[in-house]
């Protein structure tokens, strides 16, 4: 048996300790924040505009001075270093390519400033990596949005930074190109192995690309975890609503049954695994029961007897249905929740499920999560809709 000595290189770690930013006008963009981004990871800061994610990024770059706290890259404290002395590079929102320089000189800029004389080979290799070798002598305004975006990435990556910071790099691209560039960036990150810190307001983008996502809201990190973890186990209504869609039922704790909590909601009973409840579970306490729309099955009220035992079930009437190809999205009016959303795969469609039909909604209790009822049910919904 061989011993694998996993000598971890942590020079590309980003460590923020108690970092905060309050502007002269008294507005606090970022509340004291601790965050560690491990070397080589693809980390996303996700949030609506004005949540402090870009400010956090700019503090790592050195373009914004923190009001308190420290920034470490690996073991080095860079808090007092100006941006041009930090081993990080940024891909700016709308790219900030130098309009008076051609593509080659844009990409060579960082190398030349560090006094490197023979840049030709490196620049050409980098332009090939982003498939822009042909465009080297063009000016930025002659390229398309997607090409400019790749120049911005090349211009930053050629310096082999310890950390690459990306500020909404895909915001200006149309949807199709954005999807393509997401995969492209992910490929480049895997190839070069540099730590990427990516700021975005697009939850799909964050989930597609990042290993770890920090959801930010009003200058604080609401929750941090892998995309699947955040989606399956949101700990606040903001996270539950900002990442995908969630249905919430207000319920009251009734009894405990082993590892499960039994809750009363509108005359019926719901089961929730205690491990998936982030709210206090004293008997009589209020809990928001959450479930994702795609976890739910829809059965016609006449067939209610066929539903297996042990599933959570509520009744309702279909208020609206829309067929979108891969699935059908139903809005169900239920006594416990006025607009319950259900996404059903179009495998065996029941032709009777039309608006006005009485139905039973049922799901595996393991797919239920519980949140503290003291928070706003709709937190995080507006922000996503505004995008």
């Amino acid at each position: 048996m061989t011993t694998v000595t996993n000598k971890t290189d942590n020079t590309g770690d980003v460590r923020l300790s108690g970092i905060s930013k309050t502007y002269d006008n008294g507005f606090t963009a970022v509340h004291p924040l601790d965050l560690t981004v491990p070397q080589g990871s693809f980390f996303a800061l996700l949030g609506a505009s004005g949540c402090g994610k870009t400010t956090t990024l700019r503090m790592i770059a050195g373009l914004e001075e923190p009001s308190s706290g420290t920034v470490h890259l690996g073991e080095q404290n860079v808090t007092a270093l100006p941006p041009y002395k930090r081993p990080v590079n940024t891909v700016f929102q709308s790219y900030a390519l130098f309009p008076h320089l051609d593509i080659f000189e844009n990409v060579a800029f960082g190398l030349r400033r560090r006094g490197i004389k023979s840049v030709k080979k490196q620049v050409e290799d980098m332009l090939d990596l982003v498939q822009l070798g042909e465009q080297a002598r063009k000016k930025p305004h002659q390229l398309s949005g997607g090409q400019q975006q790749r120049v911005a990435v090349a211009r930053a990556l050629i310096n082999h930074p310890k950390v690459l910071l990306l500020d909404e790099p895909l915001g200006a691209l149309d949807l199709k190109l954005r999807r393509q560039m997401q995969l492209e960036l992910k490929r480049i990150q895997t190839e070069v192995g540099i730590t990427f810190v990516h700021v975005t307001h697009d939850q799909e983008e964050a989930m597609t690309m990042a290993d770890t996502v920090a959801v930010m809201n009003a200058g604080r990190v609401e929750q941090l975890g892998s995309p699947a973890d955040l989606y399956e186990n949101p700990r606040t209504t903001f996270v539950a609503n900002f990442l995908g869609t969630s249905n919430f039922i207000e319920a009251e704790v009734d009894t405990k049954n082993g590892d499960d909590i039994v809750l009363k909601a509108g005359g019926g009973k719901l089961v929730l695994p205690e491990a998936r409840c982030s709210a206090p579970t004293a008997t009589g306490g209020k809990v928001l029961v959450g479930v994702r729309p795609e976890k739910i099955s829809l059965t016609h009220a006449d067939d209610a007897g066929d539903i297996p035992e042990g599933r959570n079930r509520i009744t309702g009437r279909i208020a609206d249905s829309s067929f979108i190809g891969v699935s059908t999205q139903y809005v169900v009016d239920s006594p416990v929740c006025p607009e319950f959303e259900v996404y059903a795969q179009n495998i065996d469609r029941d032709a009777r499920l039309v608006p006005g039909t009485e139905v039973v909604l049922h799901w595996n209790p393991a797919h239920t999560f519980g949140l503290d009822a003291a928070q706003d049910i709709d937190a995080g919904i507006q922000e996503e809709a505004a995008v």
Partner: protein
Amino acid sequence: MTFVKWLKRNLVVIAGLLTLGYLLLPNVVVTVFSFNNPKGRFNYEWQQFSLDAWKDPCGVADMCGSLSVSLQIAFWATIGATVLGTMIAFALVRYRFRARGAVNSLIFLPMAMPEVVMAASLLTLFLNMGAQLGFWTILIAHIMFCLSFVVTAVKARVMSMDPRLEQAAQDLYAGPFQTFVRVTLPIAAPGIAAGAMLAFALSFDDFIITNFNAGSTVTFPMFVWGSAQRGTPVQINVIGTAMFVVAVLFVLASMVISNRRNKQKA
């Protein structure tokens, strides 16, 4: 009927040509009369074609001396006003300081003030300070009134500059000086050049302020004015035509360069 139709169709072109003619006619007259061989001392009536004046442009006493004074003053005034004006423009756009709004409007005041008023008040100032009128008082006055124009031209350019470009330069290891030289200055250059050209033109042909504050120094506009009292040598037209040709060549050269650049890109 067909004429009316034709007129309707080409009215825009005709109006454009007439306006252009209106603008350029004085230059044509100046050029034509630079080849005149006048009978008396005044060059107001066409007599016969002659190249005498072109062969001997400095043949008139003191004229080329005054031209040289004017060019020197215009050169230094352009440099002074452009450097100061560019710095003011950056300060006004980039920095928030007390009384920034007031400074912004005060900068425009010299442009709006009647020149003759400014000329008289400047003279009062110089006399009270005991300054000796001449080259330096003219230069100080010219830098002063050119400043507002340079600030206006550069400010427009700086305002449209994306501050993220400089941040990107800093992010790419350029210190403050490198950032200024490699990014800020090249991008602001068209505005600065426009301001400088404006300053040169304004300074070169200024008469009122110069006349008040020149003492015994004579600039080219003052020479033209003075000689107009006693008779106008053809050489004045020669100088005027030459300046016009130089300006046209400048414009043509910049057009050719930008055309070639565009072709290279395409």
